[in-house]
């Protein structure tokens, strides 16, 4: 993921803002070795008052249940704080695992960051 000027780099995740949304871009593999960083990044945003967080999943090539854990936990906590969590993810193969796990019923998916309102 290219880091553009102004990006706030936190661990292996990069963070930038787009309109009212704060977009977190995780590394290409979200597994037990990188999931804790992602969790911490999102948690930092939430506790510092960020209300609308989008996780840009388009560059993710592999993830496992640890990633699901992060997204579910983040969803729950952000929602309870009155905020919103969106996952940016193309349809088709990238979305397949999410759909298989029934996460499409819980998480808000958009296919591009342009769809964030």
């Amino acid at each position, binding site marked *: 993921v290219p880091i553009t000027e102004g990006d706030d780099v936190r661990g292996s995740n990069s963070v930038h803002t787009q309109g009212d949304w704060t977009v977190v871009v995780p590394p290409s*593999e979200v597994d*037990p*070795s990188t*999931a*804790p960083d992602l969790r911490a990044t999102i948690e930092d945003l939430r506790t510092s008052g960020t209300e609308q967080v989008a996780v840009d999943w388009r560059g993710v*090539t*592999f993830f*496992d*249940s*640890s990633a*699901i*854990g992060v997204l*579910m*936990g983040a*969803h*729950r906590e952000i929602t309870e704080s009155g905020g919103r969590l969106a996952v940016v993810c193309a349809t088709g*193969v990238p979305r*397949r*695992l999410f*759909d*298989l*796990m*029934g*996460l499409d*019923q*819980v998480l808000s998916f958009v296919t591009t960051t342009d769809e964030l309102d």
Partner: protein
Amino acid sequence: MGSTPPHHEPLPRVSGSLPTAILLIDLASRQVVQANPMALELAEGFVVPGPVEDWVAAAGLRAIDGAPIDPRSSAPARVADREIVSGEPVVVTSVLPQNGAKRVVWIQGWPLERGTGADSLASTGVVVLSDVSPLIGVPVPDSLTDRAVLATERCLTISDPNLEDNPLIYVNPAFERVTGYAGEDILGRNCRILQGPGTDQDEVTRLRKAIAASESCTTVLLNYRADGTAFWNEVSISPVLDRQGAVTHFVGVQTDVTTRVAAEREREAAFVTERETRALLESVLTTAPVGLGFWDLDLRFTRVNEALAEINGRSVEEHLGRHVLEVLGDDFIEVVDLIGAVIATGEPVLDHAVQGATDARPGELRHWVTSYYPVRDPNGTLVSVGAVVIEVTAQRQAEADRAEALERERQARLAAEAAQSRMALLAQSMEALTAGLDLRTSLARFADLLVPHPADWVAAHLVEDDGTVTRAVLRHADPLRVERLVAGEAAADAVPGPVATVLGTGRPMLLDDIPHDLLVSLASDEDHHELVRDLGLHSAVVVPLPSRGRTIGTLLFARGENSPPFASDDLSLALELATRAALVVDNKRLYERDHQVAITLQQSLLPDHLPDVEGIEMCVRYVAGAVGVDVGGDWYDAFPLNDGTIALTIGDVVGHDLAAAVKMGELRTTLRAYAADGATPADVVNRLDHLAYQQGLGFVATLIYGILDPATGRFTYTRAGHLPPIVIPAGGEPRVVDDRPSPPLGMGRSHLQHELVLEPGTTMVLYTDGLVERRDEGIDRGLHRLGEVAARPSESTESLCDLLLDELSDPGGLTDDIALLIVRRHLAESG
């Protein structure tokens, strides 16, 4: 034409220019009807108009060899006879150059006919006589050898000043060739078309003024051809006057003199160079900051310049007539020898370094480079010795300063490089220590980094939980040489004396020589002993691995053969490495223990035995993930319900080792409690979800919980975010059950219940993601592969479990944990 131009002055001459005489001949009457001033000058007494032969006679034209020419066959007469004269040399005898030499002119002539573009001059002949004496030198040789010079094409142009802008009305073919302009393109235009960016505007102005004043003018201009190339053009413009003295035409004769100009430029440049060289020499002799001195053969100064006088601290006058030592003092006795050598051998002595103090700055050591050379009179007799003295004191000082600065810089750079490589080594070692999955792998990578620099030999000893000391790793720069030692188990158990000492004291040791017992302890038998001795180890450092107040091991570094002994710098590096290694060893041990506890707990929580149900064969597996991976709490469960059905569960609690295992245990126990009172799978899962949501379990779990009726094969289940079951009918195609999933537990959502029927002989595989997820492919590929392998013929669910784990374990090695539950309904006849 009885009048000559009012200002009959000699033609302006530029260096090497060719004054041009021009005659216009009326072809009908063979009369010279117009002549320019030069033409009149050449033929004194000739009056215009007059017969062409009269002009020839008056000009005294002769052949180049001096023979008389019959005026009637002369070139001007032939032009009058309408013959083109392309060029021939003649001698003009009427006007002699001042030095009495012959004046050679080059005659060209063209009869102009109607239709040539010069209609106003139709039936007129033009004769041009150019003085070429300057070109061929004076005196003129009798035979003209350099005809090439004379054969230079002359361009003839005629312009009409009575038309607007004095346009060209005639150009000869030579003009077309030289300039590259075709006649039709250039006729009607002013001749300035030849000018360009490099044309000297002062010369152009001079030419223009002459034309305006109806005067002749010769100049050399830089002109440009049609294709843009430049050439030096010698232009002679002469006005042609009518009887009333009015200008009717201008006749121009142009010559490409580029070659000549180039040669002149070169000559001039050479002259300038020579003059500059002389000036430079003069400058050197008088003002250059180089000492110059001359002695007679008695070694008395005959001449010195100011620079040398200043060096010596005496005035010029104080030198003259005095002996060299009288001026310089006895310290410079070697100068006497050097001058003497020149006198004796007649050969110069060059670049001899002299140092000393002169009266100019007493007591200050100065440096000079001196050269001595013989000076001879025109007969070759040696009459004097000259010397050049160049002061180099400042340069010597600068060199010394520079050398010192370079040395300081070198030292600083070495120190910086050492610090940098040390930092790099520490960083790399940390990377190696933390990268490995288990402790031994990490230590091996760590040790690989440390040979052959900073050590030839590295060993790590660790104190185990039971207090024994083992060698965890051994590396030598040449792995082949220690292969047997590394492999030797006996050696691994032997604890070298210094290692034991450091383990006891917790203080590092720097050994200037390797004690015998250390060598012996490294070797397990006599062969090894020899091997170790051959390594030539001579210097060693043993440092403790400190952890929380204890020494948990040592690092041993040794150097052999060509390596220098360890110094205190090396000891501090070894201590830093040890600090890092100790931290990692301690952490990894804790982690390994933690991991082991988690696995133990996990496995203790899994059911000891499976329900024994008629018509149903079941098998389960749990495989723990590798150390260093945050394994999830994968689990399965199977237990009989009161109504004869069986409860089946597979699940995955996401989280860290121990915590995940504990949560899995809670989840399993709770599920069993909820399942016991005859609730449907959806009820059970919804209650679990509610509980997890209410309590904010802080973890995420996926599971499939279902109830299998052995009699009918009906399997009623709820899938909470878990990967779907795979069903393989007997001899049929595997199928990933395409139900509608519900979200994982903990989200406070209601969950759907599904139903499927396992026909006799059908196998159902429940599994966790570790079995199907790969880094390099999508989930569907993994599911497909699982179905494919599961569809292979298998005697029992046991053998199918083994087959699946064998075939599907991630070859990448960084494995997640895996739980697997396989159910197969017996075929009717065998059941």
